[in-house]
């Protein structure tokens, strides 16, 4: 009997596919259920945001930064604000910094909730997704009250934030945090320690610490590999040195260090840490103005700066070059999802098709952040 002739199958996953978060595309070479390789094809959501910055000026670019990463737009706001302030030598009022941190940490909660929720949905459990989104909606309600928008916030300004906290908002936020911590426990009881769920995640897409550093992974993905690197702690910015919080790292409790389960659980633990920061920030909130005086035709002196912000998807770098005019000469954004996408091709070898979905979800890539 002659051996059966088999062929590789080329599968096209995306750009319209229910599990690719946004418009991603993978070209998969598969042998049955096992993938030989999945080649990511990025660029479907490229909108020249960096180029737009050169045309709309410093103040005008703020709403565009929301679109760099619409799931956690507060951080992109903050990154752009900090870069402009560094160039122009502007001091943000202390209350303004607190408002920024509060908004950003709430946004981190929302982003991580979406991430862990969609991850559970990609594994096939539908209920955690709606529960996570329900919590996210409440955060969105809070943020809506703060700045009037639920997704693309445009809350921050160069020199501070646009509006102070509305009256009574602080109490609502604290009440929400009291509600959130038990919900996190309930979420863990519902899905995080579910046997099937853990089995699906452990030993899938293992990233070694060396690989993570070589591929420039950042944020929760990096910390899941056991490397304690958080910009908020290691290169402190804003008012983060005021707060006590831990940086959760992956420990490989269930399987290998740096597998999908580690990345998942690091996000869940970061939510608890974020709520800790939020409590402290809301309690320590100083009085004073929230917005520094900045000229309408803001013209920073000639120079360049590099700003690093710890966004929900990790170290977000803003490189801005000013030529002394009202328009930046060059803006570059460095995002975590792009680096993570670079690693998928290597990680996908030998995985199953179902595991690719797990892998993408665990890396928490957001399509606009890859392409900008």
């Amino acid at each position, binding site marked *: 009997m002659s051996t059966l002739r088999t062929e590789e199958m080329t599968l*096209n996953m995306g750009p319209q596919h229910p*599990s690719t978060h946004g418009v991603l595309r993978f070209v998969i070479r598969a042998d049955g259920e096992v993938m030989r390789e999945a080649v990511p094809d990025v660029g479907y959501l490229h909108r020249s945001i960096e180029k737009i910055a050169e045309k709309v000026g410093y103040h005008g670019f703020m709403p565009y930064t929301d679109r760099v990463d619409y799931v956690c737009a507060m951080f992109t706001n903050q990154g752009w604000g900090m870069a402009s302030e560094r160039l122009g030598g502007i001091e943000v009022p202390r209350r303004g910094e607190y408002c920024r941190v509060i908004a950003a940490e709430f946004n981190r909660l929302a982003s991580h909730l979406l991430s862990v929720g969609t991850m559970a949905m990609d*594994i*096939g459990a539908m209920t955690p997704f709606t529960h996570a989104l329900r919590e996210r909606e409440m955060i969105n309600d809070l943020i809506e009250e703060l700045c009037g928008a639920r997704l693309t916030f445009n809350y921050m300004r160069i020199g501070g934030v646009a509006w102070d906290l509305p009256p009574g908002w602080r109490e609502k936020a604290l009440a929400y945090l009291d509600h959130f911590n038990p919900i996190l426990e309930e979420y863990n009881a519902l899905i995080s320690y579910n046997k099937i769920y853990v089995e699906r995640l452990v030993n899938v897409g293992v990233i070694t610490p060396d690989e993570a550093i070589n591929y420039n992974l950042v944020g929760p993905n990096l910390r899941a590999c056991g490397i304690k690197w958080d910009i908020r702690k290691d290169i402190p910015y804003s008012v983060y040195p005021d707060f006590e919080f831990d940086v959760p790292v992956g420990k490989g409790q269930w399987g290998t260090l740096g597998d999908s389960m580690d990345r998942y659980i690091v996000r869940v633990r970061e939510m608890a840490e974020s709520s800790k920061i939020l409590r402290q920030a809301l309690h320590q909130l100083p009085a004073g103005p929230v917005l520094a005086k900045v000229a309408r035709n803001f013209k920073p002196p000639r120079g360049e700066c590099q700003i690093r912000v710890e966004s929900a998807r990790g170290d977000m770098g803003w490189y801005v070059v000013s030529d002394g005019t009202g328009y930046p000469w060059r803006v570059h954004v460095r995002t975590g999802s792009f680096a993570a996408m670079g690693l998928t091709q290597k990680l996908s070898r030998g995985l*199953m098709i*179902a595991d690719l979905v797990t892998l993408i979800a665990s890396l928490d890539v957001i399509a606009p952040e890859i392409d900008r």
Partner: protein
Amino acid sequence: MQTLIQNLIASGTFGRNPPYGLVAAIVEFVLGAVVFLGVALPFAGIVTWLERRVWARIQSRVGPNRVGPQGFLQWLADGIKGICKEDLIPAEADAPLFKLAPYLVMLAFILPWSVMPFSSSLILADLNVGILFFTAVTALTVVGVLMAGWSSNDKWSLIGGIRSAAQIVSYEIPAGLSIFPVVLMTGTLSMQGIIRAQGWSPQHWFLFANPFTFVAANILFISALAEGNRTPFDLPEAESELVAGFATEYSGMRYTFFFMAEWGNLFLVGALIVTLFLGGWRFPHMSNSPVVMNILELITFNVKVLAVVFLSMWIRGTLPRVRIDQLMTLCWKYFVPISFADMIGTAVWVAIWPDGNAFMGYLMFAAGVVIIAMFIRRVVFYARRSKMELYFHPTI
């Protein structure tokens, strides 16, 4: 059936001296159509509505509540929508097979209704190989699904079809083996015979007859979930991986057929479990009127089946999906050996206590009550604990 046909011939409804075969065929077709269209399809439809409402409640959503009271008629609206939509056949698809596939799946869903024991007399055909017929025709699904996956000429459909075939064929084995303990104990394959061998009270159900049947019931339930492509085994149509699996290219009525069959299968799974292990329609004798008794039995049967259906909806709302290799591991490394051991164990048990062991029945029943009580206690604990927070609106 025969008396009915002879009465019809005698009454002259079909003219003078009609051929017996023709009348029988007409009557059987009409009755069959009435039963299938009037019973099977509404059941499938109602189960879709129930599932969506239950699932929505689990997910803290509302679910369909616009069409009819509590959205009860949603399934009708969806069915009509399915009929009205364009029946699209991809240009590259293998058209005859593509068109045929949904009918095969539908056939596999409709045929088991002919041996469905609703009550002591409400059964279309009490075949002496009823349970075998039931499992045999439900396995027809795999042909339709594979056909759909192959003929769609779509790689995602193909993977879905192949997954489904592998899954259904594998899980047929533990499911079939789990039926044998009951057959060994009753010595009959007839659905009614199996139900009559059980009593109306729980300690006389086969679920609690001995430890082996208890394990067999659980394996059968899980295997039936896998055969019906239900969570946690919904790999063939895993929407986050395979778009919609074998049904990706289907639209309109054909798509509706697939999903009607899927939800109808839920009812079939429940009926199988209830018949084999949960005492079927058995109800204490309360009236001498056969009509009253039949109605009571019908209600008993349906309540039991819906309880099992509800359980599988709950499971769907709770669990994530397993991976294909884990699915196969579970089947071949655990379920098949366990169900073999189960069968041998039951044989030994029957050899030792041919009439069953009443003490064991009570003991198992007590253990079952304890397990259920603990489960309910835990559910109540979580429900109470989360209730206050679930209805918390910080901004309202």
